[in-house]
């Protein structure tokens, strides 16, 4: 034992004498052939204390990070190689692999590393995927041998194996096959697909297992010929790490914070609105148009049309439309004006009937309600157009409300309504149809204005509260956009680095 130790220390001494061995050996080469070229610049020395390997954070365990300090002086034409070995004593044998890596500064990758830390601006990193370096054996092709193996593993029975082999060997062209043979071939296709699918799954599991093992790393800098290891006292430094699957994506923190904060605000306002349904919400100008239009219809003694569009009862716009209808019907009942509701959807029809009946009851004239005024007029898009347009021309309504979800029919309906000279009020969140309403109607509730109008009328806490919550979100966005743009503009003029500020809102995935 002692003798052994002595030999080791002796060797170490000898090595120290020759030190640095790795750098010295290639460096001496030009000296032996000084005539061919001038001596190249020495390879940079890398700080062994800042060489490390660790699991890549926030990932699925598929990579290990190797990091080292960027040398102060980095000559042209040098590159870095990482040596990876499954055990510390495997270096130098064929069990260790050498991988060229292209390093980047840690600060340039905000996904995995913080740009805040000053040291990240001088540290290089490279990601190594062990399964790519030590690939698991590829699953065999689907041959007779493979079939035998599958048979041995009892994944096929003898009959299946025999049939598969026979089919595999058959070279009969597709056109000559009988329908039974064709069916068998399709079976073979399915079998092959099934086997390759399970092979792919096995491969993935093996790769994951390989990535999870611990590996040993050495780093060297090279100019193509010479190679200098990161060394301490002449010995290459070995670091070790393995890939681990992590549980949180740290780089999505801004997403998480926004989502949670915004959710909390919305939920809080819904809660507040439940207690106080008079939560302030600005009056929507379009709602005055509703009263005006009904007033005019009363003066003229003509009906009011309420056109629902094609939306189903699940859509926000339709829910909002029903709230607006409640108001329209109530006013109409007060003034004793007839309201005709044009429906496309059976469920919306039922809900609308209820709402109109309720309005008449509230106005104290339940007997004035005629269920036929709220009817399902058609079941296809264009027959709806034809039916509603026909009624408009015949009955000449004084006011037409088009509220809800609209598609291509909006233009035709609005045009017919305009041609009869009715006052038209529209409201929809179908942005593609809004241009037509704006140019043909006297008043249009645009997108969220419709929701706001509905919340204003119904005082329903969930609508009211979430509208207020969204307003807080909007205020935040407006402030960030204005302040952000100004800050960045000023920073540009005064040459201040505001990358950090921008990273606050950078979405990473």
């Amino acid at each position, binding site marked *: 034992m002692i003798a052994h130790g002595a030999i080791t220390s002796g060797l170490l001494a000898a090595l120290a004498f020759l030190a640095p061995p790795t750098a010295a050996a290639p460096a001496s080469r030009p000296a032996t052939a000084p005539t061919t070229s001038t001596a190249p610049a020495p390879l940079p020395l890398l700080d062994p204390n800042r060489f490390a390997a660790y699991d890549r954070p926030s990932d699925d365990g598929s990579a290990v990070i190797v990091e080292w300090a960027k040398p102060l002086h980095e000559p042209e034409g040098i590159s870095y190689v990482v040596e990876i070995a499954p055990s510390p004593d495997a270096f130098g044998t064929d069990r260790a692999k050498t991988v060229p890596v292209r390093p980047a500064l840690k600060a340039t990758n905000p996904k995995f590393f913080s740009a805040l830390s000053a040291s990240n601006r001088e540290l290089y990193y490279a990601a190594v995927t062990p399964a790519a370096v030590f690939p698991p054996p590829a699953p065999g092709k689907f041959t007779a041998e493979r079939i035998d193996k599958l048979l041995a593993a009892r994944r096929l029975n003898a009959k299946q194996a025999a049939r598969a082999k026979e089919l595999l060997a058959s070279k009969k062209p597709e056109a000559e096959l009988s329908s039974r043979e064709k069916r068998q071939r399709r079976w073979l296709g399915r079998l092959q697909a099934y086997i390759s699918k399970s092979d792919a799954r096995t491969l993935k599991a093996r790769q994951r297992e390989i990535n999870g093992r611990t590996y040993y790393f050495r780093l060297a800098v090279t100019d193509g010929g010479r190679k200098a290891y990161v060394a301490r006292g002449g010995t290459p430094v070995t670091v070790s790490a393995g890939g681990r699957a992590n549980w949180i994506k740290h780089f999505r923190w801004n997403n998480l914070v926004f989502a949670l904060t915004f959710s909390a605000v919305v939920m809080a306002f819904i809660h507040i609105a439940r207690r106080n349904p008079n939560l302030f919400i600005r009056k929507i100008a379009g709602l005055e148009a509703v009263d005006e239009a009904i007033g005019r219809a009363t003066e003229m003694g003509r009906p009011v049309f309420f056109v629902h569009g094609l939306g189903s009862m699940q859509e926000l716009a339709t829910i909002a439309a029903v709230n607006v209808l409640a108001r329209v019907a109530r006013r109409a009942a007060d003034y004793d004006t007839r309201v005709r509701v044009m429906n496309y959807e059976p469920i919306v029809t039922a809900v609308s009937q209820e709402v109109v009946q309720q309005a008449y009851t509230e106005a104290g004239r339940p007997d004035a309600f005629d269920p036929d005024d709220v009817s399902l007029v058609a079941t296809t898009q264009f027959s709806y157009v034809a039916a509603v347009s026909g009624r408009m021309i015949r009955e000449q309504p004084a006011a037409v409300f088009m509220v809800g979800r609209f598609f*291509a029919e909006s233009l035709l309906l609005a045009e017919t309504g305009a041609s009869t000279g009715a006052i038209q009020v529209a409201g929809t969140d179908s942005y593609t149809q809004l241009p037509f309403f704006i140019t043909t109607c006297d008043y249009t509730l645009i997108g969220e204005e419709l929701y706001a109008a509905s919340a204003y009328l119904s005082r329903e806490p969930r609508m009211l509260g979430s509208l207020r*919550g969204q307003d807080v979100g909007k205020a935040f966005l407006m402030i960030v956009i204005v302040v952000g743009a100004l800050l960045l503009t000023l920073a540009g003029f005064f040459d201040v680095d505001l990358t950090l500020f921008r990273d606050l809102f950078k979405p990473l995935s």
Partner: protein
Amino acid sequence: MWYKRTIPLLIVFVAGLLGFAHEYVPHPIAGRFREEVTTAFRIIGGFALFIGAYSLLHMHLTRIRRRQPGWAYSGFVFLGASVMIFLGMVLGTGPLVDPAPGELTAFQWGYDNVLVPCNATIFSLLAFFMASAAFRTFRVRNFSAALLLGAAVVVMFGRVPISELFGELLFGADGRQVFPKASQILMDYPNLAAKRGILLGVSLGAIAQSLRVLFGIERSYMGGGD
């Protein structure tokens, strides 16, 4: 009540929480979980397609049964549907085998020559109605409508190649791009700004809507009943 409402609402909440949380987990388990869940949803989605077909047929059937106005036309819905199902499931390659590349079956004939022309034509009708509305109803009622129509005219003109010839006629060879450029500027700046504003607002609305669903405040998607 418990089975009809409470458990479904619990399912919404738990499924939603898992859907939300797994977005922040890099562990392969999260990926595998997503794969399994989305595979399951694809299978469920196949059944969902039938509900749409059923409710449409049911509606037309009711129309025929109750002799509602125009009920006879609903017969053509059944005619079209049954012929297509017959061609697709019985004739030709049958229900189990797919056609080869380039092969024409009676089913595809029906698709190409009935469904395609009808579907493609019905929306082209709007070209006519739009032109007539352009003359009869689109009016510069106020400043807003004037801006809208002005922008529309600029875009309509700039988007077609004839504007390059007009430009050349008016401003010489260098002027070919005047009108296309004008429409592009309109798209690139004011249009972008407004669309972004709408997008931000609408997405906040969508998030709020998701939250209401998640916490069982919004239940309209569940349909009627207790």
